[in-house]
């Protein structure tokens, strides 16, 4: 195959993979909603477990919502490569003539579309529920928009590393959470700052830099790890 | 400086000595433990090689 032909065929596989993953999620419609439901449930546990007081909830809101988003993203990673690994599809992906990193990126993108995006859309409602002011909600959505893709990308590396391991689920959290923590800290502090009327550009730049870094590195790292896991 | 003064560490004895104590125990253990590990590996391997030898003799018979 000539080079441009090769590229267009890789693009074809890229799109086919995204389409297939979305179709799979659609077939599991009830599970499509699951990370979202988990997100909602975790957030609602706090007024129950801690206290329904308005002042306290408002203080806790940015942190709690972000922790919930983080946990939801982390737990939904399970659907990222696991089933492909178990039924041998991943082997076939590694054997395909296309760049593995591109295929991995396709999978990460469709994962973000079905987990990250619903969380972003749901966040304002939960913000209101936790008495967050409008400024805070806007900052929350911005940080989620920049942060959730990072969670999917970094999570993909962790997932790829722990894939071959029996019951690697919890090892995954050990690997991935430390890398998630910077995202959490910066995002929550951005929301806090915006509520106090401060400037949040610094935090947003940091999140943006993380996003760019992880978009360039994560597919490669994940593809490498997948190769190891398949072996 | 008297010994008791020295051990008293100007009132910070708990903090200082527990730091030094922890360092001693932890680093000591990290230094010593490979000796035991190596011994057990050698024991294990000796057994394995002996078993292999026996297997080979059985096969050739």
């Amino acid at each position, binding site marked *: 195959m000539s080079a441009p032909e090769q590229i267009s065929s890789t693009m074809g596989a890229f799109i086919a*993979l995204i389409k*297939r993953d979305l179709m799979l999620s659609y077939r*599991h419609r009830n599970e499509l909603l699951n990370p979202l439901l988990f997100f909602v449930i975790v957030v609602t546990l706090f007024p129950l477990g801690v206290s329904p007081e308005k002042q306290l909830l408002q203080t806790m809101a940015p942190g709690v919502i972000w922790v919930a988003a983080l946990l939801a993203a982390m737990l939904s990673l399970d659907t990222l490569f696991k089933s492909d690994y178990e039924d041998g599809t991943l082997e076939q992906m590694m054997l395909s003539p296309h760049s593995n990193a591109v295929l991995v990126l396709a999978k990460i993108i469709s994962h973000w579309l079905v987990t990250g995006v619903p969380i972003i859309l749901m966040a304002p409602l939960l913000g209101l529920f936790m008495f967050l002011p409008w400024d805070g909600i806007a900052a929350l959505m911005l940080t989620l928009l920049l942060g959730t893709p990072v969670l999917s990308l970094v999570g993909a590396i962790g997932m790829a590393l722990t894939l071959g391991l029996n019951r690697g689920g919890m090892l995954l959290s050990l690997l991935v959470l430390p890398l998630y923590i910077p995202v959490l800290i910066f995002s929550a502090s951005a929301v806090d700052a915006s509520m106090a009327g401060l400037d949040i550009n610094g935090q947003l730049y940091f999140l943006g830099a993380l996003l760019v870094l992880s978009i360039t590195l994560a597919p490669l790292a994940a593809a490498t790890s997948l190769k190891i896991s398949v072996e | 400086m008297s010994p008791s003064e020295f051990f008293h560490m100007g009132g910070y004895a708990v903090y200082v000595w527990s730091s030094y104590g922890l360092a001693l125990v932890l680093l000591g253990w990290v230094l010593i433990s490979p000796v035991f590990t190596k011994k057990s590996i050698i024991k294990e391997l000796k057994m394995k090689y002996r078993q292999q030898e026996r297997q080979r003799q059985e096969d050739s018979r």
Partner: protein
Amino acid sequence: MTDAAAGLHLKSISCTRGYRDLFTGLDFRLCPGQALRVEGKNGSGKTSLLRIMAGLAQPLEGEVLWQGRKIHHSESDYFQNLLFLGHRAAIKFELTAIENLCMAKSLHGSKSENGIEEALYQVGLYGFEEIPCAQLSAGQKRRVALAQLFLTRAKCWILDEPYTSLDVNAVAMLEKLFTQHIDNGGMLVITSHQPITLQAGEQHRLVLPKTRLERLE
């Protein structure tokens, strides 16, 4: 291509799994129009060898060459010409047979969607195209995976126990296909504990773990 370097070349391959030596110094050259049957008792290393040939595992020593180049250097070219089917069938249970094959096709780089229904018909799944694969029997699932053989233009087929769960009709159909493939200058590496009868081509047999190689017929 029929020059000296054509085909798949194993150069003094050794393999160890879990501190157990499986085979050492295996040398073999598979040329277009040839078939290789890998045989051996359970646990003799057939699957391990096939995965090394497909580039899914690294040999302890030695190297695998495709058209004279290491497979990890000519990845794209080798993988365009390779079709590997292992113990696991790479079939998504939630998708229908057609959707599964569509995906497999675009992973392997061929784009056209026609031919899929034809292939399913060939493997005897007429009437099962639109059912989620979860609802197929063990043998039917294998057939979906094997339908790829009717779709691919890959030259080198590596098949690990393709007859698993298949009934006699399906086995006969596969054997006809293999014969055709070899006649057309394809290559085939196959393992099976059932007898294999191919009508044509040059056939070799490799018995593990002795790495004894012999030519059949």
